[in-house]
């Protein structure tokens, strides 16, 4: 680059100004970081879980909490990067057409920054892991306690079917579940791989040919919920959908009896 000629006294002044401006830079970046963090936290608290909709099981409630907690935890980290980026564009941008005439400070490294950054990101990583493991544990035991009801789920190219082996073998194209009753799904496929997904209950497991996979849930909300296929399974994958009806215990018995089963 073009050599600069600076006299000693100017150099001295420049050093002082630089020291002053460095402190001001840090202060303002921290302020910007705080603002962005608050925005990120507000976003994390209100947006992801809301987009996922009201949960229909404790599992889904846990997942939405995870989304919220992870978003809130990510906000300050993302805000560091974005605050520096934004501030550099606002304040350190070289104005004018050509290349900058001087170079920036020859800052090769800064041990505290590197140590702090790696330490904090490692701590955050451990937190995410511990949170995830705890959440996994509660999901795994969700439906297996208290004598769960077994429902066989069969994926067949483009239609889900269900049967209730303990309830007289009732078969259905829609899923009926009694509220607050733990249920275990035995999922299998007649052909290719499908993925059984009850969206608002937060459960999903692939349906594989010649293998039985399991997932379990305790539906805790009355209503009708979407079941979709989450693994591309050919022509009508998009239409491989049906409904899960969560009804009262009495309503469920009534439904079973109407379809030739028993409670």
């Amino acid at each position: 680059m073009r050599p600069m000629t600076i006299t000693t006294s100017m150099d001295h002044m420049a050093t002082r100004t630089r020291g002053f401006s460095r402190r001001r830079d840090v202060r303002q970046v921290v302020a910007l970081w705080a603002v962005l963090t608050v925005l990120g936290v507000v976003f994390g608290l209100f947006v992801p879980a809301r987009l996922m909709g009201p949960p229909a099981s404790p599992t889904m409630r846990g997942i939405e909490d995870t989304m919220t907690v992870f978003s809130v935890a990510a906000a300050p980290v993302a805000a560091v990067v974005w605050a520096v980026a934004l501030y550099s564009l606002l304040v350190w941008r070289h104005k004018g057409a050509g290349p900058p005439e001087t170079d920036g400070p020859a800052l090769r490294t800064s041990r505290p920054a590197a140590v702090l950054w790696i330490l904090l990101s490692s701590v955050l990583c451990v937190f995410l892991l511990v949170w995830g493991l705890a959440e996994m544990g509660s999901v795994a035991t969700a439906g297996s306690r208290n004598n769960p009801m077994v429902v066989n789920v069969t994926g067949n190219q483009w239609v889900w079917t269900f049967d209730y082996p303990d309830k007289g073998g009732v078969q259905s194209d829609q899923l009926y579940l009694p509220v607050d009753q733990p249920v275990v799904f035995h999922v299998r496929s007649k052909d290719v791989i499908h993925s059984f997904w009850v969206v608002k209950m937060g459960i999903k497991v692939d349906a594989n040919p010649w293998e039985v996979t399991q997932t379990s849930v305790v539906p805790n909300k009355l209503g009708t919920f979407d079941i979709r296929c989450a693994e591309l399974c050919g022509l009508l994958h998009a239409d491989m959908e049906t409904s899960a009806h969560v009804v009262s215990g009495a309503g469920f018995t009534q439904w079973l009896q109407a379809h030739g089963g028993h409670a």
Partner: protein
Amino acid sequence: MDARRTLTGGALTVLGGALVVTLTGIVLHRDGAEAAALSATVKGTAATSRGVLPHAFLKLATYPDSMAGAHGPGGGVHPDWVTYGPTSALKVPAHSLVTITIDQYDGGETITNPYFATVRGTVGGTMTVDGKTLTKTSPDAVGHTFTIHAAPSNQDPLFVSVPLPAVAEDAPVAPNSDYPAPHVVTFSFITGGPGEYVWNCEYPCGDGYYAKFGGAMSSRGYMSGTFTVS
């Protein structure tokens, strides 16, 4: 660079790109489009469990090859594929009793999922085959199924599945026909509100090394199509 030249050049490139996308889109649209829809004919009304409703009729057929149906005189690109006819795009009125009659010309064997050997979702859970009322057919002699389903969100659920018994392998070819005498399958169901549904066959009768759901089974216009309630 000259600003006007840049503007012209940039605009031309964008237009050229848009043209390429549009032309490709038109070609693919024609390639993948369904034949013209067949609308059910409404004849009078019928008393049902949901009150007196308009009564609509549809007549379909299944063929062991594509010489009949909507694929043109030579059978189209895949004359040897099994197909439904006369078209795969079906339209029926909302809040009506719909009666569908299917002439089933094709043979068959064991169905992969016996669930579809039973009649589902029709009035009374029954169908008539050559005049006899049945609730299911043997899972080992299914020719095809006619199965309507779709995304239930934002529209009334509609699930109807009817097995079409196979025509015997050694059945003689009927006079004045290319095929043996068909099984005539009739069934009725009640539609809810308007919605976009699909139908397909659940008997694996297509190509592919695995599970026989390729070829005709995986191409709209042969063993699957749209079912519009309007």
